[in-house]
């Protein structure tokens, strides 16, 4: 058995390479999530003519560290009437699903280091988008389990709201993605980015689809104006009301990680992913070397992600929360018909193009 395992011609270095990549991506997502909390408070403050956190470190930059330390130092309370196992499982699941999505996002083309071809994508799954959808739908379990296990009627109400909202908006999101897939012909995120590197960004071909996807992404991330599951003033905190200490921190963190990942997915699907704008990547790579190109690509993708994250925050501090019936009306009566319309028009045009029409 041992002999046969060793005799399999397997690239063991690949395993190390992927392990390093995974740990880098996880720590980067956590770091980004940390600084998103700082950024959120800063953006909120600036938009409300305030100054925001500015005590801990220069410009308040150490504020997330102080917050984390505070959350770790807080007393951890598990209510006696709660379901212990599920109560602990909830935040862990929320965090897990938030992190898992990053596996299929291409963060850059590849590095040529130590004579190896190191791809900056953990796994180039040929059903990348389906994988993302699968994992994102599991995210609802974090909310559901947390709300259920708390044994608190407000938490339960919030969990039900959150679940129905996420399920409703997933439909429109899926249909808007189908229109995109008709153009790309591939579910692999890497292929989609490579198509955009040579052709147009897909936001130009799918403006309506992007808009629908964007709105649904807000709903999936439970961000204002769709943050009904944690409506403070009606449900006094929603599904994580009974949570304290780092379990609460996990829920809050998972929200920010979700925001980061969905920004990455939106940038990848519609805004060219790691493509450096206004530069022909192929010729640049030949002229200045692949490693410099890959670095620039990572920077470019992160630039796009930061823009999206800022947009998320900008919307949060502008638009008030929807009422529940308005939310459902928007999802079922407006977004789904629009997405269907978009899908039909796209399908029609793709069919014409395949039959050699020129326009």
């Amino acid at each position: 058995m041992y002999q046969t395992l060793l005799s399999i011609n397997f690239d063991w270095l690949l395993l190390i390479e992927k392990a390093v990549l995974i740990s880098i991506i996880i720590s980067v997502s956590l770091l980004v999530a940390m600084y998103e909390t700082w950024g959120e408070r800063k953006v909120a403050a600036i938009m409300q003519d305030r100054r925001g956190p500015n005590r801990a470190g220069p410009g308040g930059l150490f504020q997330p560290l102080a917050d984390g330390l505070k959350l770790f130092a807080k007393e951890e309370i598990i209510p006696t009437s709660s379901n212990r196992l599920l109560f602990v499982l909830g935040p862990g699941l929320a965090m897990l699903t938030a992190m898992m999505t990053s596996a299929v996002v291409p963060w850059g083309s590849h590095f040529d280091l130590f004579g190896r071809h190191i791809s900056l994508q953990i796994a180039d799954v040929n059903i990348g988008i389906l994988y993302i959808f699968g994992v994102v739908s599991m995210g609802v379990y974090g909310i559901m389990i947390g709300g259920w296990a708390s044994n608190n009627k407000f938490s339960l109400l919030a969990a039900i709201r959150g679940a129905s909202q996420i399920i409703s908006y997933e439909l429109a999101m899926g249909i808007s993605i189908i229109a995109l897939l008709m153009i790309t012909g591939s579910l692999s995120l890497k292929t989609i980015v490579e198509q955009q590197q040579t052709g147009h960004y897909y936001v130009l071909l799918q403006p309506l689809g992007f808009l629908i996807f964007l709105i649904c992404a807000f709903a999936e991330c439970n961000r204002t104006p769709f943050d009904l599951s944690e409506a403070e003033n009606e449900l006094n905190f929603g599904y994580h009301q009974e949570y304290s200490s780092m379990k609460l921190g996990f829920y809050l963190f998972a929200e920010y990680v979700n925001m980061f990942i969905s920004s990455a997915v939106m940038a990848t699907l519609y805004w060219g992913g790691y493509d450096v704008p206004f530069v022909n990547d192929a010729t640049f790579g030949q002229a200045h070397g692949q490693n410099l190109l890959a670095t620039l690509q990572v920077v470019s993708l992160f630039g796009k992600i930061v823009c999206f994250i800022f947009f998320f925050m900008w919307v949060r501090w502008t638009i008030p929360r929807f009422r529940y019936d308005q939310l459902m009306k928007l999802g079922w009566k407006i977004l789904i018909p629009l997405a269907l319309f978009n899908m039909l028009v796209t399908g029609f045009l793709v069919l014409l193009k395949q039959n050699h029409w020129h326009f």
Partner: protein
Amino acid sequence: MEPLTSRAKAVERKPMTMWERMYLPAIAKGMSITFSHMFKKKPTVNYPEKTRPFSPVFRGLHVLNRDEQGRERCTACGLCAVACPAEAITMEGAERLPGEENLYREEKYAAKYEINMLRCIFCGLCEEACPKDAIYLSETFAPANYTRKGFIYGKEELLIPNPVTEPEEFAKAQGGRVKH
């Protein structure tokens, strides 16, 4: 019904137009408003490092004044305590002994002088009543304290620094309000 004022305006209840029902133009308008606020001047002051300037008539914590040679001006006549509408001031007089001429300006001085800052309403009547220019309301306000006792200010807290030995602190404590 007749409107009661000329400013009455009928509420419009006509249904929203297509443009209004699209939401997005209104959202874009709102977003542009919040975005424009990013470039506005912030009215907030970084408080402990920076303070807002007080108005010239601001009345803050009391100061017991000294003359140019650093002698206490107060003679414990009690006029401030009489003038005080909140009855915040108490004092005990004492006679100046030979050899204390460099400490006290006149033959009588306040051995004990207390103001209860929780009772004080900072009206400034003590300042007006004082015939010796001995008490002034400065430009600082009472800092927080843990006990009620901490708000009863004695001579140590009230007395202005000596202008001969500590001229800088003296000038700072005087502020803009004390007459020279």
